[in-house]
């Protein structure tokens, strides 16, 4: 087994009197897709925000590549190779795909002592990367607004990978997508994982998790209920864990096992 790239040990996060995380431990391993499951309010978002430097943990240790880490800002985490793709906030619709792709990382070319945006390079790289991800662009100047939700997620993932992400955190990438778009995003996750990148996949959809996950961690009310490996757990068990067991079991009877 490869060494974990990120180890989160007994992470606690308090917001005033609210305990959002009460001691969560997770190991993220390169080349694996680690699914983080949990119902709304379980602490998934707080947890990944702690991982990506948005929040500072109240207690607990974070090890990145074996060294203790304390990211002060998201930019530090990004520089270290932890990229987060947020569901709605991945792209700017009015801007072209190429401009979005290089947003914050614009390539420059020096002409007469002034740094200019290297549009030619940006366009070429964007078209190439999009081809690899299976997205047909009319041109690099096509506005992101014309892409579908799944394609936008894919562009955001491609962007993170292109800029050297070692850990890719996906915050509910599939929750707003249709069936086919979801399949595209899951295929992208699989491709990224095979490159040796660690993927943290946040979802509350067990089927999406089962499709690509290598490890599954369920969060419930700020606590982890342990991590299971692929093959050790069935979708039904995961679903029960997420719902805290009780209610869904009774519901399932009345709904005839459709949930």
């Amino acid at each position, binding site marked *: 087994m490869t060494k974990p790239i990120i180890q989160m040990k007994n992470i606690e996060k308090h917001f005033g009197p609210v305990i959002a995380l009460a001691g969560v431990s997770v190991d993220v391993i390169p080349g694996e897709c680690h699914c983080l499951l949990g119902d709304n309010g379980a602490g998934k978002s707080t947890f990944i925000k702690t991982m990506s430097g948005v929040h500072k943990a109240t207690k607990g240790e974070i090890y990145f590549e074996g060294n203790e880490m304390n990211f002060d800002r*998201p930019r530090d985490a990004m520089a270290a190779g932890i990229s987060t793709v*947020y569901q709605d906030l991945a792209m*700017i619709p009015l801007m072209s795909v190429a401009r979005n792709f290089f947003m914050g990382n614009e390539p420059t070319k020096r002409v007469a002592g002034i740094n200019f*945006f290297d549009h030619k390079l940006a366009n070429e790289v964007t078209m190439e990367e999009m081809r*690899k991800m299976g997205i047909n662009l009319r041109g690099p100047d096509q506005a992101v607004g014309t892409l579908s939700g799944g394609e936008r997620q894919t562009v955001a993932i491609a962007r993170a990978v292109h800029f050297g992400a070692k850990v890719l955190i996906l915050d509910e990438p599939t929750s707003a997508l249709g069936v086919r778009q979801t399949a595209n995003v899951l295929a992208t996750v699989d491709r990224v994982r095979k490159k040796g990148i660690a993927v943290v996949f946040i979802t509350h959809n067990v089927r999406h998790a089962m499709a690509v996950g290598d490890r599954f961690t369920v969060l419930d009310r700020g606590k982890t209920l342990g991590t299971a490996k692929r093959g050790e757990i069935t979708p039904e068990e995961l679903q029960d864990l997420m719902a805290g067991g009780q209610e869904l079991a009774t519901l399932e009877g009345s709904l005839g096992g459709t949930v």
Partner: protein
Amino acid sequence: MSETAQTAPPTDERVKEMSSFRKSLIRPELGGICGTILVFVFFFLTARDSGMFSPAGVMNWSVVSAQFTIIAVGACLLMIAGEFDLSVGSMIGFAGMSIALLSVSFGWPVWLAITITFVLCMAIGAFNGWLVVKTGLPSFIVTLAFLFILRGLTIFAAIATTRKTIIGGVRDVAEGDWLAPIFGGKIFTGFFQWMGDHGWIETFVRGSKAGQPVVEGIPMLIVWALGLVVFGHIVLTKTRFGNWIFAAGGDAQSARYTGVPVNRVKIIMFMFTAFCACVFATAQVMEFGSAGADRGVLKEFEAIISVVIGGALLTGGYGSVIGAALGALIFGVVQQGLFFAGVESSLFRVFLGVILLLAVILNTYIRRMITGEK
């Protein structure tokens, strides 16, 4: 991965080939280009004999358009970055008064007065931006406050120090100053004199200016306008900072997530807008030789209207400096053209309202085309 990379992607049957007409439609400058052509054709047909297209006439509307252009460039970049500045007009009054007070009333060298005024205005612009960024309030409200604060301060400062709201005599103290001609001077005067001598352009036949051409040269105001347009256009479209301007206005949160320093971009844009207002004010003071506490009233709206006619979206993230300049040109040509055509000048405002409405509707339509919204 490699198998997908090597084979050409199958073309998606749902991606329709875009006609080049439709493609050209979704350029921000389109409205500005059409409007400019329309306006020139209209006035060429109706006011050709009125002297509107004589050298003096051209100079007349060029100067007015250049004034609009200078403030429109600042407003344009700021609007693309997602903010407004309603204090531009008051800033113009403030800057002009500052120059006049420092140079005429305090007797400081004009270059020093101009320099201090620029620093002061840009500092106020930065403070505006800082307030907007820190409080998260709409820039509309923050700069509306400064519209009143700056105007009130300007009138107060003028009356408290000189008991007047108009301070003249700037031209006399600016005599021989090295910085003043950069704003108030004219270039190519020799060339215009030479053209006048050869009878290619009209010359004065009587009075103290007899023999001099009716157009002495290109005012620095026009040079500033062109320079700012070129500068703004290059920064916006050809630099990484330009990409950040689009990103900051398009979606500030998304931009932050990818590491764009959104706050810094916005503050710099507020400073740039203040800089443009200051250029306008300085050129105006040098031209008139005086500063008035009521100068620049409504200029903020004229700047915003030029920018909107030029195709920028009020919501930010989309627009063009060239478009804004064309908007300013339309504005200037129509304002002066109606005068040449002998149309009642109050109708100008009617026209302005109508064209503004049309521009906003067109922009909204274009925005839907780009983003594919329904």
